[in-house]
């Protein structure tokens, strides 16, 4: 495993070279975690195929690469990003832009919306609201196996902060646009924290984009606290180029009677790994975990879900789908843990995949650990071609083969899109998925972002 130790050395150097600069710009509480986290990373290393949870995903090519920079922004970067205006038709949101993982605004780094909700920079929030940060930061993103979570904790210094006070319903969604842009190959990390107090409600849209063709590696951690009887939805739309690797770890901690949903929609990307952790930490909590990916060429998309039923009478539901073209590959692993006291648990999991060619490959694996007796649990996975009977049915009505195939793929994907509650976004996604299936969506096609706005400046 000399490869892996080489990788470790590389990141050891990265840490040594940057830790002072990073700590100098961060709050003491966030710095407080860094050293221990880095020790953990040194022990665990970068996940390899030997790790059960990364069995089908080879991160080496991205981690072995010598990135010219670990991104720390300069004032000019902030200026550039300040000029950026996201122009989204019909979609009315509170927008936040992250550039290479940083909140790229000089003034107004943290703003309060009329409803009392705070949105803005995590780094800034750590200074302004130390009590809130201390209560939640680093509490949910825990892992004894995944070194990348610790790598993030040891070096990340900014990201998005959202705070929804008790009893507040934010009707407009908050939209985070993650832009990655650099003149040279770059490794970057960011860290988000979302706190939803009791009886509150918010939805978050996260759009991941690459704006320049360099090789990028992004390792992002998001922690979400959802208080009693609150609602939280996160929709992540990924549209990145083939030379980008995006690794996301999202931890959703739920209190009793809360309801959350997570929907990862991967339209495009080189290597993508999304880990979503749902902790049902109170009675009658519900969590819905969805994911859809469309791949072609040499792309690889891996979704990992971990649902932890720690209290009685909770419900969880996972539905993940993939459409794989060319020689692309995909993986899904869904773990359901039902602890001894979690009686009355309902836990469901479904993973359906369509392979469009003989060379495309999909790996799927359920992992059920059930220690309670009164549990309703089901799981199922399919990997197959488009349904011939359905294809013939459509063709027998005069729809040509190509369109009939498109319709079936679209219908397959739409089963996930339809779970998006925000109507303009749902319509937009239907549209994008259709374009993607037709092969019309190039990496720079304006997704929710009009990339041209930025590139022309």
């Amino acid at each position, binding site marked *: 495993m000399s490869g892996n130790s080489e990788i470790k050395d590389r990141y050891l150097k990265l840490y040594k070279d940057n830790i002072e600069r990073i700590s100098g710009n961060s709050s003491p509480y966030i710095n407080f975690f860094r050293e221990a986290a880095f020790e953990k990373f040194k022990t665990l290393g970068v996940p390899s195929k030997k790790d059960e949870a990364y069995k089908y995903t080879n991160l080496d090519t991205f981690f072995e690469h010598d990135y010219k920079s670990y991104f720390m922004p300069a004032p000019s970067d902030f200026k550039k990003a300040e000029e950026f205006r996201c122009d989204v038709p019909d979609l009315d949101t509170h927008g936040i832009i992250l550039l290479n993982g940083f909140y790229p605004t000089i003034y107004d780094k943290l703003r309060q919306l009329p409803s009392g909700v705070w949105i803005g920079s995590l780094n800034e929030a750590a200074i302004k609201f130390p009590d809130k940060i201390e209560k939640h930061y680093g509490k949910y993103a825990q892992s004894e196996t995944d070194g990348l979570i610790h790598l993030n904790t040891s070096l990340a210094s900014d990201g998005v902060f959202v705070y929804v006070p008790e009893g507040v319903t934010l009707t407009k969604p908050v939209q985070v646009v993650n832009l990655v842009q650099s003149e040279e190959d770059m490794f970057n990390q960011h860290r988000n924290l979302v706190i939803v107090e009791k009886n509150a409600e918010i939805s978050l849209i996260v759009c991941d984009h690459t704006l320049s063709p360099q090789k990028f590696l992004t390792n992002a951690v998001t922690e979400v606290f959802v208080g009693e009887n609150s609602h939280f939805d996160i929709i992540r739309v990924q549209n990145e180029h083939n030379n980008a690797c995006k690794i996301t770890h999202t931890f959703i901690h739920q209190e009793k009677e809360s309801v959350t949903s997570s929907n990862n929609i991967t339209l495009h990307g080189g290597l993508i790994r999304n880990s979503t952790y749902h902790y049902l930490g109170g009675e009658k909590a519900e969590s819905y975990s969805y994911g859809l990916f469309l791949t072609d060429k040499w792309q690889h998309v891996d979704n990992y879900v971990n649902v932890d039923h720690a209290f009685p009478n909770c419900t969880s539901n996972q539905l993940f789908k993939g459409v794989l073209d060319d020689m692309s590959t995909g993986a899904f692993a869904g773990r359901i843990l039902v602890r001894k006291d979690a009686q009355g648990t309902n836990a469901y999991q479904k993973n359906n995949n369509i392979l469009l060619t003989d060379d495309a490959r999909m790996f799927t694996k359920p992992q059920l650990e059930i220690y309670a007796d009164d549990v309703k649990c089901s799981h199922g996975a399919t990997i197959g071609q488009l349904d011939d009977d359905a294809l*013939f*049915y*459509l063709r*027998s*009505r*005069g729809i040509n083969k190509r*369109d009939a195939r498109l319709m*079936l793929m679209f219908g397959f994907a739409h*089963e996930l899109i339809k779970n998006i509650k925000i109507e303009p976004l749902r319509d937009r996604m239907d549209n994008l998925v259709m374009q993607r299936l037709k092969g019309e969506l190039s990496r720079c096609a304006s997704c929710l972002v009009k990339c041209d706005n930025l590139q022309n400046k």
Partner: protein
Amino acid sequence: MLVINNLKASIEGKNILKGVNLEIKPGEIHAIMGPNGSGKSTLASVLAGRDLVKVTEGSVTYFGKNLLEMSAEDRAKEGIFLGFQYPIEIPGVSMVNFMKAAVNEQRKHKGLEPLSASDFLKMMREKKELVEIDSKLANRSVNEGFSGGEKKKNEIFQMAMLEPKLAILDETDSGLDIDALRVVANGVNKIKRPDNSFIVITHYQRLLDYIVPDVVHVLYDGRIVKTAGKELALELEEKGYDWIKKEVENNILA
């Protein structure tokens, strides 16, 4: 309009159709009856262009053209419609989008402009009324979660939308309650014009009280072994198929 000559076909190497001869003229209604597994649906599949069924011999001409050379979608555009014995559920594809695509493909084939959204919805509404289909069904995904009877009515609705020249209805009556049976039969009768034809595959003479056939055929073991007027259906209802099987065996022996 349709001439089937000595048609032989197999599925996965198994011979199913063993020499079918049949001619259908414009305006005619043909009923095809016959025991389970005799090849009725296979014949319907061959006519609709399912490539799972391999034609090994014989010919089918449709308005003078070689039907067997045409793709399934072209046959549909040329006016062939198959009402499936087991309509397929297609989750995520809405009835509206499905029918819009089908109707506009057909219009394109005829050199017509696609229908505007409002004209299309108007057409949907009219046809729904014509075949008395619950209007909510048309807002759902294709056949998804439809009851058996609803699926069959949905086939008739699609037929009304597409106005075929030759409609093949494969057991559209089975699984229907008495009222639904009348709805389906009325639908057929409303769509019936002097120049379009029907092949009605059924096990029950009851349907033929509503849709009165010009001819009744019995398909047995891959061949049409008997052809007569509508009274044949009554006779079959009374006596079953044994006497036909005996006749066939005697013919072979003789």
